[in-house]
């Protein structure tokens, strides 16, 4: 059976194609203003990657902030349920999942079957989401992809007190004026963001193993900050973490079929 999972996120729309629960194709497109186009293009990219035609698809599962726009979806799965299922699929021993997306940070406590037991989501604030790092990269006049690796070059610990992305930017500007090295500022930014996420994780309880999905999982600096904040050695990152929710959505549908 071929099932497609589409995660229409705030920044990117990700699609995976699963044949008998094995990933055979992936596609990712910037969501932009036209969610319908992004969904269509992302689906086409994933089908092309899988080398199949849309006629071969048995069912479609949707998730993400824009899931209502996935018109052909047979089922829509909330993001928390999708990420829980994905974490359980990639790391069966997972009991805590964190998903750091562009606009949303989440922490979920799951059981051995990937069922949601408790969850926490950041409120109306981007300080615990990927957009925070993007905003800070602009303030630092650095490329987004440089931000994470820079963290690993710093051995300083500079606290950032601001809870809000706007005020944090002021702090970054202050640090720039104080001639603080970019690597040290980047570490301070990532540590601040990790502390917001860890606060959510602690709210639901830190239970090993911990899995991180979402695009920020590709940022080595953030993962390093997260491990230090959690005081643990390992955070499991599945392959292509940005596709985690899409995979989870497809798995939920596969299970129900």
């Amino acid at each position, binding site marked *: 059976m071929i099932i497609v999972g589409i995660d229409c996120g705030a920044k990117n729309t990700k699609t995976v194609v699963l044949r008998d629960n094995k990933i055979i194709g992936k596609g990712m497109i910037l969501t932009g203003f036209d969610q319908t186009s992004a969904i269509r293009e992302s689906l086409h990219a994933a089908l092309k990657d899988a080398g199949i035609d849309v006629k071969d698809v048995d069912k479609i599962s949707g998730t993400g902030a824009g899931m209502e726009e996935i018109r052909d979806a047979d089922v829509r799965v*909330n*993001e*928390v*349920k999708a990420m829980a299922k994905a974490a359980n699929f990639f790391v069966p021993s997972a009991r805590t999942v964190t998903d750091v997306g562009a606009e949303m940070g989440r922490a979920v406590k799951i059981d051995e079957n990937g*069922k*949601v*037991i*408790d*969850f926490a*989501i950041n*409120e*109306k604030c981007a300080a615990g989401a990927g957009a925070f790092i993007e905003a800070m990269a602009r303030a630092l006049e650095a490329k987004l992809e440089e931000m994470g690796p820079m963290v690993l070059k710093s051995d300083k610990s500079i606290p950032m007190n601001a809870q809000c992305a706007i005020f944090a930017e002021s702090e970054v500007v202050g640090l720039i004026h104080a001639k603080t090295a970019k690597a040290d500022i980047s570490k301070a930014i990532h540590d601040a963001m990790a502390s917001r996420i860890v606060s959510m994780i602690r709210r639901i309880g830190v239970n090993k193993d911990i899995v991180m999905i979402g695009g920020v999982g590709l940022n080595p600096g953030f993962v390093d900050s997260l491990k230090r904040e959690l005081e643990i050695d390992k955070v499991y990152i599945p392959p292509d973490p940005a596709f985690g929710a899409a995979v989870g959505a497809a798995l939920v549908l596969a299970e129900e079929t």
Partner: protein
Amino acid sequence: MAQYPTEPLKCWPKAKELRNKFYENYKQAHEKGGIRCMGSAWALDAVTMGLGRDVYWITGEPYGASCAFDSPLSADFLTAAEKFGFSRDLCSYMRNYWGSIIVGKYAFGGPLPKADFAYTQHICCSHGKWYQNACELEGGDVPLYVIDVGVGACPPFEPEMYKHRVKYVADQMLDSIEWMEKITGRTYNDELFFEACWNDIRLTHTWAKICMLNRAVPAPLDEKSIYSLYVFATLQKSSAAFAELYEELLEEVEDRVKRGIAAVGNEQARVMTDTQPPWGFLKIYRYLETWGVVSIGSLYTFGLEGMWLYDEDRNDLGPRPMPPEKPTSREEACRMLADWHLSKPEYQHFYSPEYKTEMMDAIAKNWRCDAIIMHYNRGCEGLSVGIAENRLGLLERGNKVMTYEGNMGDETEFDLPSTETRFDIFLESLGLKKREA
């Protein structure tokens, strides 16, 4: 398809009429030769009734909630308060109230009538300043009397020195009577006070009995309706008309339970909440109903004005029995009222969040709740104090808990779509299915 029969409450028209009349009376007080009094919904309004049956009240919290329910009006009031210099993180009821004074507009039509005096109490840091500022904003010549009730928790939580605590509060009430005579020039009538005191006790006792009936499955009342009913106890506890309304309501709810009449026809699951809701978004309760969920109430709706006794051994709450007889002396009435009100469940958490956790857990267990939905209410420091501790305590006691952030009286701090998304995630995790529209 509804599983249980439903029907509207028969007392709705009377309840609406009484509420409208209450706010009209405040407006027309002087035309009737009466006196206007402003103060908190927690205030011991019965004490003022010894001045005559023509003392007309306005209470700040339900007034602030009514403002918040009217989004454009509330925006005007909140903006005016902020422009005046009051910080946005202050109590949102208070900001609506002050804004109403600053704009000079009464939420129930016409200009805001000026109070003749203020009679209130300190229960939290906001109430410590609320009427001081209100009196100044109303021209600076409105006399103010404030009773300090910050004396500690009642038994069984903190039994030590309880009688001295009661005396401390009762003595202030006695003192306030002399003060009221002085500022109004009226002679105090003890008989009227005893009557008002007894109305207060029977009303708050009856409310607890009504809430007890919501243990039934299906629940005869949903919390959205409870908000419209508990409000009478927040408007004026000493009102004979309101006490009679509650007695009629008790009979009606008993009848609903007997006949299996549900508030939510498709009741599949029961939740309880905590603290004031975001008043401009009560539709969230209707949203819960699409999942077959009824909110049966909360420590807030049950215990803000209802009087209960907490039984530690049984982990249960029951209506506090009324005193055997009406008071017959001024001192006895003050003592009786002080003792009665210091046992109010919503006072107790000011002294330790653990007390509130215990009582909430008792409600969750005995009202057969499947889960607890807690509003991290940024608009009320008083009732939100310790709420994260409550959540942890309730989780430790085996309850399923979700939280959402918002503000009871400032809609800019509430996000409806994301709150509904949270509900979806949480309710689905409870194994519920959303009803198709």
